[in-house]
């Protein structure tokens, strides 16, 4: 069908939203709450005029003969007022915020040229007693949840866009309370205890849900001359690191950037992946059991333990590649280099959020792509003329094919080839649920089952950066 946008005619597919047609044709419409697959239409910022009436563009389907105007006095007025209202409900502590410069609300305020704020902020920290008195019943409910190893939630920075509620595969989050008191929260506001896939962190437009880590400590370790900081690069992160810093568009440049912020050695995680594959092969060979669950997806392990504890004994016990590499580094490598293992700081750059929870004692930190981006920004590293470098020598990868395990099914395929066994692959939580349900009913009989919580595998992991 044909629709008119700003007096020009465009082709629209059946079922396509106005916003999709605009984007496909390079017409800019600002949005906040909408992400692919989920168009809530709650932020009311993607407003356009349709036949002279204001409407949202993200959740209104294009229909034959529609006449859409994306820029007009009313449209910009609607966007401005709604954005101002939203901003006043936001803490606005940009300078200290983890998401500074990577915040979609901040970007909108800049692109829509929001300068005058008419409303008294509701969430800003106030010390002045006079102000405090004036605004005593103006305060918003603020819920901070810091009770886990992987992520931090604070509703102070939340804009109630519902992205986290929508993307959560186990439906842990929802709205609590109503009207001006509405906050995103868990049932009974208990501390979050989920499978930590990290999709909520990835999709949060502001700093309301962020990665948890002691970045100050990491910065001190990086700067410490006595200590040797070692970075492990998970091949999956190369998919998204350019979203954080467009200049880092290759592996070589990523290695240079890591060295630039203070890492002395940078190794390929492929080394640990090969070790893990070998260990898995041995364990499967030894086991007489069927339906063994591969354990390289930490979220999947958590999922089984939480929702299907009867299958916890089927989970393999092989350590994660990062852990295996860290073990090697702190023992054999340290001996060879004649360095005290306590002076080694091993940090894994990963696309996984749940790994933070499953990390052992030799691996010091797991950081996500977003956190790397933040460290680079904080260190003010100049990336403009960054050169390519190679991995440090010492940990060789025998076969680059091992890196296919970052995609769903990769690990199972390799194992099946080696061991000549049957396997099943589950991609995403809905498939995982189906398979475990079948397993429960005894409808499945195979040797190994591989499952990845993030759809597509680690390449779409919760620790990846998102294109804004």
């Amino acid at each position: 069908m044909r629709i008119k946008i700003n007096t020009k005619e465009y082709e629209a597919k059946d079922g396509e939203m106005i916003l999709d047609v605009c984007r496909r044709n390079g017409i800019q419409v600002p949005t906040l709450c909408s992400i692919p697959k989920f168009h809530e239409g709650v932020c009311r910022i993607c407003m356009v005029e349709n036949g002279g009436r204001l409407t949202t563009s993200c959740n209104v389907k294009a229909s034959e003969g529609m006449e859409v105007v994306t820029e007009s006095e009313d449209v910009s007025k609607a966007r401005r007022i709604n954005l101002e209202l939203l901003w006043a409900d936001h803490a606005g502590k940009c300078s200290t915020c983890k998401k500074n410069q990577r915040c979609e609300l901040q970007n909108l305020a800049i692109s829509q040229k929001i300068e005058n704020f008419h409303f008294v902020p509701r969430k800003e920290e106030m010390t002045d007693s006079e102000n405090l008195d004036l605004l005593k019943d103006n305060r918003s409910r603020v819920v901070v949840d810091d009770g886990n190893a992987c992520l931090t939630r604070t509703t102070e920075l939340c804009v109630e866009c519902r992205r986290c509620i929508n993307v959560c595969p186990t439906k842990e989050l929802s709205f609590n309370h109503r009207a001006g008191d509405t906050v995103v929260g868990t049932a009974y506001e208990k501390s979050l205890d989920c499978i930590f896939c990290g999709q909520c962190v990835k999709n949060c437009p502001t700093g309301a849900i962020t990665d948890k880590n002691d970045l100050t400590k990491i910065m001190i370790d990086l700067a410490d001359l006595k200590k040797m900081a070692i970075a492990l690069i998970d091949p999956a992160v190369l998919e998204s690191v350019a979203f954080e810093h467009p200049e880092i568009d290759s592996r070589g440049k990523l290695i240079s950037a890591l060295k630039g912020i203070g890492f002395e050695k940078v190794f390929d995680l492929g080394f640990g992946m090969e070790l893990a594959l070998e260990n898995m092969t041995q364990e499967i060979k030894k086991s007489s059991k069927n339906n063994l669950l591969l354990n390289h997806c930490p979220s999947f392990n958590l999922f089984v333990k939480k929702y299907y504890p009867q299958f916890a004994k089927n989970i393999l016990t092989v350590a994660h590649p990062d852990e295996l590499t860290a073990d090697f580094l702190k023992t054999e490598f340290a001996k060879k280099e004649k360095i005290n293992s306590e002076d080694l700081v091993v940090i894994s750059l990963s696309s996984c959020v749940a790994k933070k929870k499953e990390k052992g004692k030799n691996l010091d930190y797991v950081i996500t792509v977003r956190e790397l981006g933040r460290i680079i920004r904080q260190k003010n590293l100049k990336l403009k003329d960054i050169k390519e470098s190679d991995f440090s020598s010492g940990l060789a990868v025998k076969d680059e094919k091992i890196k296919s395990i970052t995609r769903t099914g990769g690990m199972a395929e390799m194992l099946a080839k080696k061991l000549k066994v049957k396997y099943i692959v589950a991609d995403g939580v809905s498939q995982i649920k189906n398979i475990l349900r079948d397993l429960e009913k005894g409808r499945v009989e195979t040797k190994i089952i591989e499952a990845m919580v993030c759809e597509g595998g680690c390449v779409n992991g919760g620790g990846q950066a998102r294109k804004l």
Partner: protein
Amino acid sequence: MKKETKIITKNWGQIDPNEIDDSIEVGGYQALEKFIHKMTPVLALEEIKLSGLCGRGGAGFPTGMKLESVQKEKSKEKYFICNLDESEPGTYKDRSIVDNDPHMLLEGVIIESLIVGARKAFVYVNGNYQRQIEILQRAVEQAQEKRILGEKILGSRYSLEVEIFAGAGAYICGEETALINSIEGNRGEPKSRPPFPTQVGLFGKPTAVNNAETVANIPWIISNGGKKYAAIGSKKSAGTKLFIVNGSVKNPDVFEAPLGTKLSDLIEKYAGGMQKGKNFWFAQVGGSSGRLVLEKDLVRKLEYDREAKVPLGSGAILVVDKTVDIHELLLSWMSFFHRESCGKCVPCREGTFRLWEIAKRLQDGQVSERDVAAIKDILWTLSNTTFCPLGKFAATAFGDAISNFQKEIYKLSR
């Protein structure tokens, strides 16, 4: 006064709401018998369409059209919902129906459910209406005993189960999609349309949602025919309506009057005129979300008309005299809306909060230039960009007050 036409209130005060036999004695369930033995769902729908009955909840959508679109749907599973989530401040017409004649309502529910082909109907009652929930429960039980409800109604091939569903008392759950969400066990907030509930409604099935007052009209229409009903009321909207007149009048109460009655008549003839020593200032028509009517517009007819300047809404009329402090009224409206907004979309969640905040400052006389500009902006965004009509409602009365009584409102401001 002319001889009153009574449709909904005809049995009020004459029967015990807890006794089905009382109701049957005065002709209750005769319409259902007529429907079952002498009519088909298609024929009955024709009568309703002929009657010109419009939804009494506020929007005034033709009931016949709504029922027809559900009846046409091919799905095996369909639902009928009677909306009794009355929570508009100053509105208590649906409650009065249950208090006085619950069986007329139940009869309407049964007939409408059978017309659309539903085998299960819900009566969604505001959770604060505990007494009414009990009355309705008892009515359902008694009807089941008489085989008016359940399997094979009155020996026919029709079956129906009616569930009295208690909401939690949220204003937004009066909106059909939010109401459906609430019954499904989700958070009570509106969904985007299309798809309309008539196609994809409760549990994804075609669903007709009707206001309780609309439902209560159905037995009369089936008994007496649509043509006769259409003859009552005005040219534009047929039938009678329950009006609730509150405020500075002598006899505040629920009155049944034909649609098209003048506002001045309602105040003077039905509610006994203004209280002694009080002078009329303005009237708010349609509950908290209604528009304000000044003295010069009192001659206006009250009817369902898309072009009407004063939408009838729920039919609640608040008469305000000159001794009332407008600031208190503003604050009470905004306290209501800022509490009842569901929190889903930005303009309503934040806008109603800000207006409430400013209303408090207005009362204290602390309003600043910045607030005056903010009021304008918020009212605009509420009426133009919100997800569901609640945002628009929140802006109507406040906006009318600001434009009509600017002097009085900003009088205190320094």
